[in-house]
């Protein structure tokens, strides 16, 4: 069964009342150029072949689906499957989009890329693609984030990128995005702004969706081929929403497949310290698009909070806002504590340590499985495991009260 939805976004970049291009006039011509270049590239077989080659032979696609048999035992008899985006080169789904946009930048004759990053995953992926394709790369990162993610700053620098700490505003991801936009307007001629999420002005949400679509194109085929069925539900974590959009895209027409997006509930939505933009935000304009925003009654952006730097963003991609409004996808918050419990449980039952971002999806999927179990159902749930957890070890140590001290000492005299 398929639903009959019109092709979105429309030619003005709108997902009904969401999306659009709320940007200074100076950027309009560049956005139009980008859209035209993207549409041309999409129709060009050599572009597709080049991207496909990089996906297979550089990034390591297709990524497998792993059946989490031991973890499934904690899920009321549900069958839990993991789409392993953590096995991509650089450790997350971010590379999917970055390879596509970096190729596009070269095609447009640009010699450098700029990017924003929160935790640093998109920054590292951008620096990686820039190194591969011989582009200059500058990454904007909130000063608060450069301090708490010093390792990723060093990774980007080792890859040859310049990292700029952004000291304006709240000094986090949203300010990094503002600063990248400010630089872009002054460097349009030779520079592509490589946005990392399905946010920002049109055509970025569409471009990032199309480069991330590979996740669900592969996963849907793997489900049919290997399991002989579609999943009953698909689950993904959502900050800006790029892995979720990629994971949902090809399943949207399958009306019988539930789509679940799990937002960062932080210390609890009622505490006010969270990043649950769809669950607790209101409609507004942020970073060039109309979407759900965490904002006060005057329209000033409110700072978000999450243990996961990658979900710590007060906006969300406009297509998710639309999917939420139409009811096609359901978005719910998952707290820091639930996510950290899921990280520990998946690590110990499957030997797979997810990124804290992805752990939100794992926790949410388990919650949904247990709800369905209570109704006597045993669903098959496919989770997008968007990234691996290595980068989160320091946060996990702190959360669990560990300090790296061994359990015991043996051998040696004294």
């Amino acid at each position, binding site marked *: 069964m398929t639903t009959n939805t019109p092709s979105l976004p429309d030619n*003005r970049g709108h997902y009904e009342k969401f999306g*659009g*291009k*709320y*940007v*200074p*006039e*100076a*950027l*309009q*011509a*560049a956005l139009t150029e980008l859209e035209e270049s993207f549409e041309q590239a999409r129709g060009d077989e050599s572009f597709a072949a080049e991207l496909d080659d990089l996906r297979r032979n550089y990034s390591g696609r297709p990524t497998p689906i792993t059946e989490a048999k031991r973890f499934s035992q904690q899920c009321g008899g549900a069958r839990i499957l993991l789409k392993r985006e953590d096995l991509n080169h650089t450790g997350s789904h971010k590379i999917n989009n970055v390879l596509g946009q970096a190729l596009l930048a070269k095609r447009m004759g640009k010699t450098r890329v700029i990017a924003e990053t929160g935790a640093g995953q998109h920054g590292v992926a951008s620096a990686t693609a820039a190194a591969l394709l011989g582009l200059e790369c500058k990454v904007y990162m909130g000063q608060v984030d450069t301090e708490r993610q010093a390792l990723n700053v060093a990774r980007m620098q080792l890859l040859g990128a310049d990292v700029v700490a952004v000291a*304006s*505003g*709240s000094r986090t991801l*949203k*300010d990094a995005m*503002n600063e990248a*936009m*400010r630089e872009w*307007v*002054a460097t*349009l001629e030779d520079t592509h702004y490589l946005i990392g999420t399905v946010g920002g002005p049109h055509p970025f949400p569409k471009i990032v969706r199309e480069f991330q679509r590979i996740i669900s194109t592969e996963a849907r085929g793997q489900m049919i081929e290997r399991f002989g069925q579609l999943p009953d539900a698909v689950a993904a974590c959502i900050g800006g929403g790029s892995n979720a959009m990629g994971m949902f895209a090809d399943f949207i027409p399958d009306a019988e497949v539930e789509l679940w997006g799990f937002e960062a509930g932080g210390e609890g939505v009622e505490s006010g310290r969270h990043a649950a933009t769809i669950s607790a935000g209101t409609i*507004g*304009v*942020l*970073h*060039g698009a109309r979407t759900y*925003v965490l*904002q006060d*009654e*005057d*329209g*000033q*952006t409110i700072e978000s909070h999450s243990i996961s730097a990658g979900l710590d963003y007060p906006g969300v991609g406009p297509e998710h806002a639309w999917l939420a409004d139409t009811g096609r996808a359901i978005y719910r918050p998952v707290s820091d504590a639930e996510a950290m419990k899921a990280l520990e449980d998946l690590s110990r039952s499957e030997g797979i340590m997810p990124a804290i971002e992805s752990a939100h999806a794992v926790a949410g999927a388990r919650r949904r499985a247990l709800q369905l179990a209570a109704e006597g159902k045993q669903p098959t749930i496919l989770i997008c495991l968007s990234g691996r957890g290595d980068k989160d070890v320091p946060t996990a140590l702190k959360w669990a009260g560990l300090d790296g001290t061994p359990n015991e000492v043996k051998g040696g005299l004294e």
Partner: protein
Amino acid sequence: MSSGEAFRLAREEGRGCLVGYLPVGYPTVDGSIEAMKAITEGTRGQGVDLVEIGAPYSDPMMDGPTIQHAANRALERRVRTSDVMRAVEAVTNHGTPAVVMTYWNLVEAYGVERYARDLSSAGGSGLITPDLTPDEAEEWMAASDQYDLDRIFLIAPSSTDERLAMTTDACRGWVYATSIMGVTGARDEASSQAPELVRRAKQVSDLPMGVGLGVSNGDQAAQVCSYADGVIVGSALVNRLIDNERTGGSDLTELRRVADDLAEGVRRRG
């Protein structure tokens, strides 16, 4: 008085129109209103012809460090949209027309029609909308028609001829020509792109053209007014208030002197 009228009066006097930007709430709401009045007077009773009242926003994509700093300070003190309306009323009661420069989300959050109504009853002339182009402005077009407010959209050196025609056609009062591809902030060198932009815009529109971004002194203002109808100055004014913050002072004499220099510049014409 409409803001276009300020341009018309300046033109009648054979000079450029001077538009001065200051944000509400920096150093305080009352302090900012005093500063706005001061730039309309200078030290000799001659200053800006039109005040551009800035509404501080948490994510100002078009602004450089100077204006960001002032806006941040204002937001730390919880400046509200109601304070913006109060500043508009104070400036217009003082005898100078005023427009508000605002990022679009603040208008949406307040309610577009309600914003237009309150701006109009406060005596405001209209809005400058840095991140709203006519493409997304349906609601604002209707509200500004209803309350007879000016719509000042931006044009840029990168604007295509088609977009210049579309944008200037949607404007009412005057047109804001951004002189460079970049953000707000004082710059030493005059833009080489601005004269060409104004020339192209004048081919498709009879509206007055104000040039902004990077203009900081009387000489630059004079130069701009040799090819444009007016000049917009922001960071150079805000910098004098930042000086006060640094020294702990509140004297506005230096700010008034900047207004003197600029007012003299627009009367010199190159």
